[in-house]
């Protein structure tokens, strides 16, 4: 059981290792991070349908080097598009923790901010920021493509001046986030949920 315990911790505790600080090429890498943001193709909630117009001819976020990428390991930008239910939040947390480190979160719409239209619904997360660090939030009940582009510009600007530090905040006060998460889902929710899914696989 101990090995099991340690592994579980390893599985959950993503924060136990220290980070690599590149002294020499830092400015170059910062520029590169700004100019090439890869979006993790994980469209939660109703905003997912807002994503395709960005990729089409009119708005074309590929101009800024942004490319949708299905694998979280390679992704940097994580778009939370629309309301977040606890079930989706579990998947978001797991995918977020799998992404590698300089990673940013762009929350679309009012639901992640304060629950928006579903302010009184029993299964919508009211304040996403309590569970994962949001870098830029775009208001509006499904902001239009221009607003999303503006949000992305905002993120690029924040990377430029180093204030897009959502991942740093997640690392420093990981206990706070972890407490909130466990409070919402209950302790050791990863095994319980996995076991629930086992029946279907």
């Amino acid at each position, binding site marked *: 059981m101990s090995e099991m315990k340690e592994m579980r911790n390893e599985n959950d505790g993503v924060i136990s290792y220290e980070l690599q600080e590149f002294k020499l090429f830092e400015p170059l890498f910062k520029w590169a991070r700004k100019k090439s943001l890869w979006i993790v193709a994980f469209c939660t909630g109703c905003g997912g349908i807002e994503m395709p117009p960005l990729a089409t001819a009119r708005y074309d976020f590929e101009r800024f080097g942004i490319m949708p990428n299905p694998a979280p390991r390679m992704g940097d930008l994580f778009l939370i598009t629309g309301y977040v239910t606890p079930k989706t939040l579990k998947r978001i947390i797991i995918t977020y923790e799998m992404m590698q480190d300089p990673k940013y979160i762009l929350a679309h719409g009012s639901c992640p901010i304060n629950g928006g239209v579903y302010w009184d619904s029993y299964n919508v997360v009211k304040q996403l920021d*309590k569970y994962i660090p949001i870098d830029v939030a775009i208001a509006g009940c499904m902001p239009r493509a221009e607003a999303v582009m503006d949000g992305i510009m905002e993120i690029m600007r924040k990377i430029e001046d180093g204030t897009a530090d959502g991942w740093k905040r997640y690392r420093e006060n990981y206990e706070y986030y972890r407490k909130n998460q466990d409070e919402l889902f209950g302790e050791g929710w990863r095994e319980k949920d996995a076991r629930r899914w086992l029946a279907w696989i």
Partner: protein
Amino acid sequence: MDMNEKKVEEKVENAQPVEETRPELPDTKEGRLVREIVEKAPYAEGSVRRERRVEFRVPAERIHEFLELASEKFEMLMQISTVDWLKEKEFELVYQLWSVSEGIHAFVRTRIPRDDAKLPTVMDIWPVAETYEREAHEFFGIIFEGNPRLGPFILEPREYEKHPLRKDFNTIGYVKVIYGEDFDRYDESKTNYVI
């Protein structure tokens, strides 16, 4: 001897039940269908709302028998929706049927008491009913005898116990407990709104 038999037959013939006084059914396709069904199931009251839309009201204990009867005409069970009449302490279940051959919708309503709501399952007539019944059970707590897979279906276990769509479920209280007290509506007074 045959005289008596003839007499007996006459008595049987004219012993027809007297035509009940009912709002007369229009002589359309829907009307004929409703009249035909109501003849077979006297306990039900049928009415034609509009073209291609028919309604029946059936007491709870005869619902299964009625649905079997209706299933010859109405091949598909579209949905089982539930209405929670808190004041009358009753649930109203609406079986929405669709007849492919006639092209007519039928709304079969029944009312069951609210506290320990029980109904026989209709899976033997339409197997698809299993999902609708599970959903109804999850959100309203209605128990369908004979449905093998009642129990937690989609919702998280915590919400499943509360059967959230029942009117007596205090949503805001629950939200305050789960998502914390500082949940606040947008307040104009706050100037810098920090998420």
